[in-house]
């Protein structure tokens, strides 16, 4: 391993890249296009029902179920039953992407029947006033209806179901765009080295460039490390552009910390080596492209790139957990959104170990010269 040779090769890589203006333009503009496209399509929001997380502590009593059914019928909210620890209900809301939540207390039906006043607790996010207003309107409207129908001992009686002013939800609310940023950074960590390394592996062989390099003291691992270094640099640039565009165009909330750095290094490391390995085992450029696609496409969609894995059906979630990119993106989620250091460390560890193994395999199987 000789840093002088790695650096010399890196210079050639960077020059070749910078002298290809079309490629350069697209690799800088592409991250912005991705963010703008997905950000606009999916975070449009505003219209339609607001997703409302409901925790029913009254154990699905008929009254509470009827209440929720009525709520759902308003079309103002879309009720989803959740089962978070009550103590952390309000902070779980944000972490799971809800901006409104409703807690139905235990004894709801009993109190309603006895006409003992009972409080519903509504949590909203002041930053999303539209959703908050819509949810508040729906919940108090249905509560009024129930109160009118409550059996009063003649004349008027005090409203039984009360909806006190809503509380602020207890954690930062993550919107689609917030998830999208780590997802799309992961997307480019995967795709840009994979596609180009698979291509390079076959075209350099065809053009005899590997043969040429094999006649110099440059070793296979030096050559691979020089490519990795370049993709690490590119990844930093891409990540900066994506974060900038996400925050600038869509007001995303992501934490920008040094904790992100390990992912921006081990991620490209893994996928440069994996691309090389895929290009190496293939005998022809066509099969190289095919193998590259077979590896890349499932990861491109199932690792939490465009949608959070927690929203997948459970079968697909299992699949996601065997895809290396999942750990890259999940780790960046932990760092950029949830500040969950333990899980972030676990994720980066998984990726680093994989990267070392794949690197060793790529160096082992990749041949400069024709062996047959």
């Amino acid at each position: 391993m000789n840093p002088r040779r790695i650096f010399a090769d890196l210079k050639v890589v960077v020059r070749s890249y910078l002298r290809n203006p079309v490629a350069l333009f697209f690799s800088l503009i592409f991250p912005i296009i991705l963010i703008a496209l997905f950000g606009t399509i999916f975070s449009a929001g505003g219209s339609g029902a607001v997703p409302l997380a409901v925790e029913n502590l009254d154990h699905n009593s008929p009254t509470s179920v009827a209440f929720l059914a009525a709520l759902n019928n308003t079309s103002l909210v879309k009720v989803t039953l959740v089962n978070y620890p009550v103590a952390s209900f309000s902070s779980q809301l944000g972490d799971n992407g809800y901006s409104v939540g409703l807690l139905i207390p235990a004894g709801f039906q009993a109190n309603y029947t006895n006409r003992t006043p009972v409080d519903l607790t509504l949590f909203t996010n002041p930053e999303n006033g539209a959703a908050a207003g819509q949810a508040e309107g729906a919940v108090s409207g249905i509560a009024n209806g129930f109160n009118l129908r409550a059996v009063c001992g003649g004349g008027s009686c005090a409203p039984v179901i009360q909806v006190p002013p809503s509380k602020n939800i207890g954690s930062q609310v993550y919107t689609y765009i917030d998830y999208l940023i780590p997802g799309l950074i992961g997307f480019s960590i995967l795709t840009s080295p994979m596609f180009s390394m698979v291509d390079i592996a076959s075209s350099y062989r065809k053009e005899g460039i590997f043969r040429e390099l094999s006649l110099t003291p440059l070793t296979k691992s030096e050559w691979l490390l020089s490519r990795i270094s370049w993709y690490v640099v590119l990844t930093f640039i891409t990540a900066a552009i994506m974060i900038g565009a996400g925050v600038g165009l869509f007001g995303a909330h992501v934490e920008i910390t040094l904790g992100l750095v390990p992912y921006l290094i081990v991620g490209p490391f893994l996928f440069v080596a994996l691309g090389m390995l895929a290009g190496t085992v293939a005998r022809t450029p066509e099969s190289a492209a095919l193998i590259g696609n077979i590896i890349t496409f499932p990861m491109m969609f199932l690792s939490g790139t465009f949608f959070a894995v927690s929203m997948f059906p459970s079968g697909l979630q299992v699949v996601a957990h065997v895809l290396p990119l999942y750990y890259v993106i999940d780790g960046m989620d932990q760092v950029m959104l949830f500040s969950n250091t333990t899980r972030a460390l676990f994720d980066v560890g998984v990726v680093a170990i994989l990267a070392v193994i794949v690197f060793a395999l790529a160096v082992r199987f990749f041949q400069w010269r024709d062996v047959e």
Partner: protein
Amino acid sequence: MSAAIEVRGLVKTYGPLAAVDHIEFTVESGSVYAFLGPNGAGKTTTTEILEGLRRRTEGEVRVLGLDPWKQGYALHQRIGVIPQDFRFFEKITPKEGIEYYASLFGTHPDPQELLQRVDLGDKSNSRFDTLSGGQKQKLGLALALTNNPEVCFLDEPTTGLDPQARRSIWEVIRTLRREGRTVFLTTHYLEEAELLADQVGIIHHGKIIASGTPGEIIRAHGRAERLVFEAPAALGSYLRSNLGTAVEIHDGRVEVPLESNRDALRVLSAVESSGIAWQGFTTKRDTLEDVFVRMVGPMDEGALKSETPA
């Protein structure tokens, strides 16, 4: 003198095809060896085995005392290679290419001087993809020299070059020899072999069919020297019956093969006594080209044609 390259019983097969078929030769260190043969004869296959780029099927090969396949990494520090169809990074200039190779090898050549040496000084800052075929070839040669090699392998370095460019490559090869380096050169051009090589090996269908200095090859495989008269056919018939040799009669030309120099006197006095008028005479001896055409097949503007299927 010691051997820079030694090849014994070398075989390389591709399926049923023996691309190289039990060849042997030795290249003395400091000499120029020209490996001549038509397309598909096995030149590149042999060359790449010597460079450690291909594995041999059978036989012994030593370059600078090393086994090129097993000790390739050590060997590559000491040899320079310009492959047939040399390709390089498209967006990189010759000057940057030389600097790149120099840092890989840890040597310190002056890029401009090296490029001037191969007559590419004026293109030192042009990107590879804008160079002409000949200029690319010259860059390949310059790159092969960045590590100050003891042995240079040049696989058809002049194919496709214009006459002036070809001459400048020849000059580089002569300089390499003067500097005491060994040169292994493959070529289609006989002229090149005759001008540059100390030793020539002719390969045909994977076998070496002639080897030695150009003179030795002509002596061993050429026809006898001949006296050629500009004379009517009658002289031919006369000589045929009087000398008993295989006189050839062409249109206005009579060719008489000579066994020895003394033979010439005998023939001339026979001509004199025939009383038939003749205009003049020349002597004719086979060139390497004549030998070639007889052994391998017709040529195409000084270059060898393709191998005819065996």
